[in-house]
């Protein structure tokens, strides 16, 4: 039994057999085994050869129609390698002599062979290294217990373990079978974490070297509440966790009861709770959890996982589907926020050296007008179906905001000419997620109907911390006094200008920050749907006076630690079950 600590990013408990994915470009770590286990590992290696041969043979018969000789030859060569006794012996000998796992022996042996080829001067021969890597992948796929493509065809419950997961990968998981997620890399606000949370799959990230401790098929417990992963737990631990898991389900159930009750404080102040969604099918979940609309509809999913750019119709269908669920309740559609860690880099010949400070989000849209206009047309067309609002992300200055508005007007004129209906008074807002936008909030407020504070990026840019970098991720904190000052400025400026204000970043779904936000004057929160009931319970347990007191105390504090400790204590008094 081994206990690993990471960051809890999506609540819940999962107990399941592990499935390791994404081995592709990742070096299998060396992991020693007990000498008594060597026979087992050698058998695993042999089975992997056998299964890889079967798979390849079947694949070959399926591909019989292939005319090209070279493609057939490639598979034939792979098959010869898999049948090669001396290769197999080299691998099993390595397991025996160094007491290592079958996957490590496979990877090490084949990579040695590959590097032997790479060293050859003859280009034709050195390129054969690629074949060897392919054979390595074939064997690892058997050993690591299926892989990415097979995640789509799961037939039993698993806990996914990976070095790192992309949001696209995570979004593709079938909730019925993927019971939990654990990864070496990532942080609380990495996109994969956001997706896991909205799917309601328990997840722990930033486990650093978890993949070195787990072999495919090991039982793991993923504790998404406490940020713990237990590898090969003993039966006592499993029992404890089963009980804990039941208790947690009970709490969830209790929270479910308040879903239909209004989100009002003890002094009857109404707070609007909206949902953050990524996919149209999540809209239903927002309603189920008691959300009153969509405060952040991310639209990047339309661009991911597809060979070509989405058409206007693709956009329209997705928006129409979501808006129809909410009818006359607000749906705030954020224009595409591509760039940095997402999409755009893969389209470039050379990646940007500093993508988070590069061509991303609204900047990318303003340089790709055809794409931007296609989306705006679709949003405008959908605006007649309900209460649609448009939100521009990552505004950093007045020029950008003016330019975005101008382009929207162009699109409106086009629609006028074509006599296509849209809401002429559609509300327009911007995300406040850069320090420059926060500092210019009073000016920006004159041109827009609402602000939404995107705390994740605001924190990253204010504190100059990459939220996914484990080496500095502890510096990333919502409780940093610099961040809180900026947020306070934005809220005050929005109030002065009498425009709507909401908070849609992770801060809005963190129980510890709710009193602070209410005390600062926030009355609309937009958050991951599964968190809505818990946040509502906090709101229903406090008075605005309590919250104002919390803020008054905090404004006198200068250290992040002091503030976060104070907030934790204050919240614990209100909702002890959450801890």
């Amino acid at each position, binding site marked *: 039994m081994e206990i690993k600590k990471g960051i809890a990013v999506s609540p819940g408990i999962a107990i399941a057999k592990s499935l390791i994915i994404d081995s592709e470009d990742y070096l299998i770590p060396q992991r020693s085994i007990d000498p008594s286990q060597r026979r087992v590992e050698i058998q695993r290696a042999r089975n992997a050869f056998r299964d890889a041969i079967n798979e390849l043979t079947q694949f070959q018969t399926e591909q019989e129609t292939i005319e090209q000789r070279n493609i057939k030859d490639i598979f*034939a060569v792979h098959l*010869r390698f898999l049948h090669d006794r001396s290769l197999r012996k080299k691998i099993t000998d390595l397991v025996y002599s160094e007491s290592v796992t079958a996957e490590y022996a496979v990877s090490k042996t084949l990579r040695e*062979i590959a590097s032997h080829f790479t060293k050859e001067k003859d280009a034709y021969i050195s390129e054969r290294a690629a074949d060897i890597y392919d054979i390595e992948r074939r064997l690892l796929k058997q050993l690591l217990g299926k892989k990415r493509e097979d995640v789509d065809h799961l037939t039993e419950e698993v806990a996914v373990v990976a070095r790192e997961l992309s949001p696209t990968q995570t979004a593709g998981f079938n909730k019925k079978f993927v019971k939990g997620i654990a990864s070496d890399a990532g942080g609380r606000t990495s996109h994969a974490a956001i997706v896991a949370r909205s799917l309601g799959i328990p997840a722990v990230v930033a486990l650093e070297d978890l993949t070195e401790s787990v072999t495919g098929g090991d039982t793991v417990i993923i504790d998404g509440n406490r940020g713990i992963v237990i590898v090969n737990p003993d039966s006592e631990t499993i029992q404890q966790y089963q009980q804990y898991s039941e208790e947690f389900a009970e709490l969830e159930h209790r929270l479910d009861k308040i879903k239909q009750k209004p989100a009002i404080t003890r002094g009857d102040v109404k707070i609007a709770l909206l949902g953050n969604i990524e996919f149209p099918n999540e809209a239903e979940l927002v309603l189920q959890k008691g959300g009153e609309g969509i405060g952040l509809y991310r639209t990047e999913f339309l661009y991911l996982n597809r060979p070509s750019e989405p058409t206007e119709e693709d956009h329209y269908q997705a928006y129409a589907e979501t808006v129809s669920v909410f009818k006359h309740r607000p749906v705030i559609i954020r224009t595409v926020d591509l760039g940095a860690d997402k999409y755009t880099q893969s389209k470039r010949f050379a990646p940007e050296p500093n993508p988070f400070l590069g061509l991303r989000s609204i900047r990318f849209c303003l340089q790709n007008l055809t794409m931007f206009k296609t989306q705006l047309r679709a949003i405008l067309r959908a605006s007649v179906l309900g209460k649609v609002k448009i939100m521009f992300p990552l505004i950093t200055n007045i020029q950008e905001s003016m330019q975005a508005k101008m382009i929207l007007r162009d699109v409106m004129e086009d629609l006028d000419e074509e006599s296509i209906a849209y809401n002429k008074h559609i509300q327009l807002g911007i995300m406040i997620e850069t320090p420059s936008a926060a500092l210019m909030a009073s000016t920006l407020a004159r041109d827009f109907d609402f602000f939404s504070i995107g705390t994740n990026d605001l924190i990253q840019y204010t504190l100059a911390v990459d939220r996914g970098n484990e080496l500095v991720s502890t510096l990333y904190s919502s409780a940093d006094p610099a961040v809180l000052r900026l947020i306070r400025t934005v809220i005050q400026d929005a109030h002065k200008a009498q425009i709507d204000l909401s908070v849609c970043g992770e801060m809005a779904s963190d129980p510890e920050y709710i009193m602070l936000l209410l005390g600062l004057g926030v009355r609309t929160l937009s958050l991951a749907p599964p968190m809505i009931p818990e946040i509502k319970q906090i709101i229903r347990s406090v008075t605005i006076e309590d919250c104002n007191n919390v803020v008054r105390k905090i404004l006198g504090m200068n250290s992040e630690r002091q503030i976060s400790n104070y907030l934790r204590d204050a919240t614990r008094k209100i909702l002890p079950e959450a801890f």
Partner: protein
Amino acid sequence: MQAGENTLETVVCETEVEIKNADGLHMRPAMQFVDIANQFECDITVSNIENTVDGKSIMQMSMLAATCGTKLKIKAEGADAQQAISDLQELVEKKHFDEPTPNKQKKS
């Protein structure tokens, strides 16, 4: 072990061949080589200046990385050694692994 194996006459045959196809002993030629080698009972080894490898193992054969012009020694040991050597020699020096040689232009 089969009884009677020891009664078989042990034949040792050796020859030297030169790789003549332009791309050398890459994966597909290596496959052709081991496919033929594996049809025989005899042990087959192949050597260049530095190494001696098992002529029935595609991994070892391909790792010889013999380019066009390389000379290899093929040694067969066993009852059917004679036939093995002659078949392998034909593959390497007459058929050139069904591949073009530097002098000949590729056929269509």
